[in-house]
């Protein structure tokens, strides 16, 4: 079941779309989010990576300190700087 994912930095929306799973590292440890996750607000570690999985492909985004916000509507990642590192 896909969910809406948006990765936004203050200067622009870096990426948004549908995805199956988001993997990020918060200050408490690595975390995977699937659709239907409980609402969650997490602080991401500095210089971490966020992986967005859609089907077989994985999008990797370098994120420099930010937040992960999970709601019923989807996942949004707020990062001061976010850079698409590529897909594979």
């Amino acid at each position, binding site marked *: 079941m896909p969910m809406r994912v948006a990765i936004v930095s203050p*200067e622009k929306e870096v990426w948004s779309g549908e995805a199956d799973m988001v993997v990020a590292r918060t*200050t408490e440890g690595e975390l995977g989010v699937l659709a239907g996750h409980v*609402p969650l607000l997490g602080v991401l570690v500095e210089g971490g990576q966020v992986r967005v999985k859609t089907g077989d492909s994985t999008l990797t985004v370098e994120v420099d300190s930010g937040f992960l916000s999970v709601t019923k509507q989807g996942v949004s990642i707020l990062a001061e700087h976010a850079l698409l590192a590529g897909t594979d």
Partner: protein
Amino acid sequence: MAGQLREYRRRIRSIQSTKKITRAMELIAASRIVKAKARVAASRPYADEITRVISAVASQTTIRHPLTTERTDPRRAAILVVTSDRGLAGGYNANVLRRTGELLELLRAEGKEPVLYAVGRKAVTYYRFRGRELAGEFIGFSEQPGYDNAKEVADALIARFLDPSGESDRVDEIHVVYTEYVNTLAQRPVAHRILPLVLEATAEPPPGGPLPQYEFEPSAEGVLDALLPRYVESRLHAALLESAASESAARQRAMKSATDNAGELIKTYTRRANAARQDAITQEISEIVGGANALAQVS
């Protein structure tokens, strides 16, 4: 007579080159408005999201955070004045500085000692000329402020607000004076207090569905500690972007009227130059005719 004609022509040439310059500045400013507006639009998703998250947190926990706590007996207030680096923008800077003056008076009347922070070369020179001490100066980005600039300013302000060394240097409030972009024709200088933050825990669900009951990682306090400074930065970033858009709009308008005025002047001087040339010709003819008549009478 011919001397006057030359003088008019010289002036026309000089005004023509001025007009070319103001016209170019007008066009540049016009394209900058478009860019600035695009930046404002691009910053909106982040600002909206962070506002949403903050109000969600505020509605489910009682926030006790230094950044949101009103100080009892506030004695010192910082003002951040957002102006431009370059002039030739009509009343843009004068309006901001006038609004700041009003705020200064108000704060003094409330018994608070104002501390000034300046963004943009114009505010820096204005206050330095009047011998006012500036607690901080930030220059070089007024037309194209990036998030890093906003962060630099916000960090300095937050550090001063939370100054752990105690009473001596700490400010109890932070205000920002900037120019709100209404549309191309109207920009409004406004003053807002940004710290301490006022977060209303509203019972009504905001547009976009009810706010979710969040779980926090690591903890509500930990999230808030990280979130509130980002929120202040985001607010400041928005203020800087609005000001940049307003600056370009004000400059475009000022340069448009300068171009129009130059056009008017060229027209007037062209008329006068034509009249002077015609006068010269008329006079020459009458001299020739007069000379010929005199010769005819003699012979």
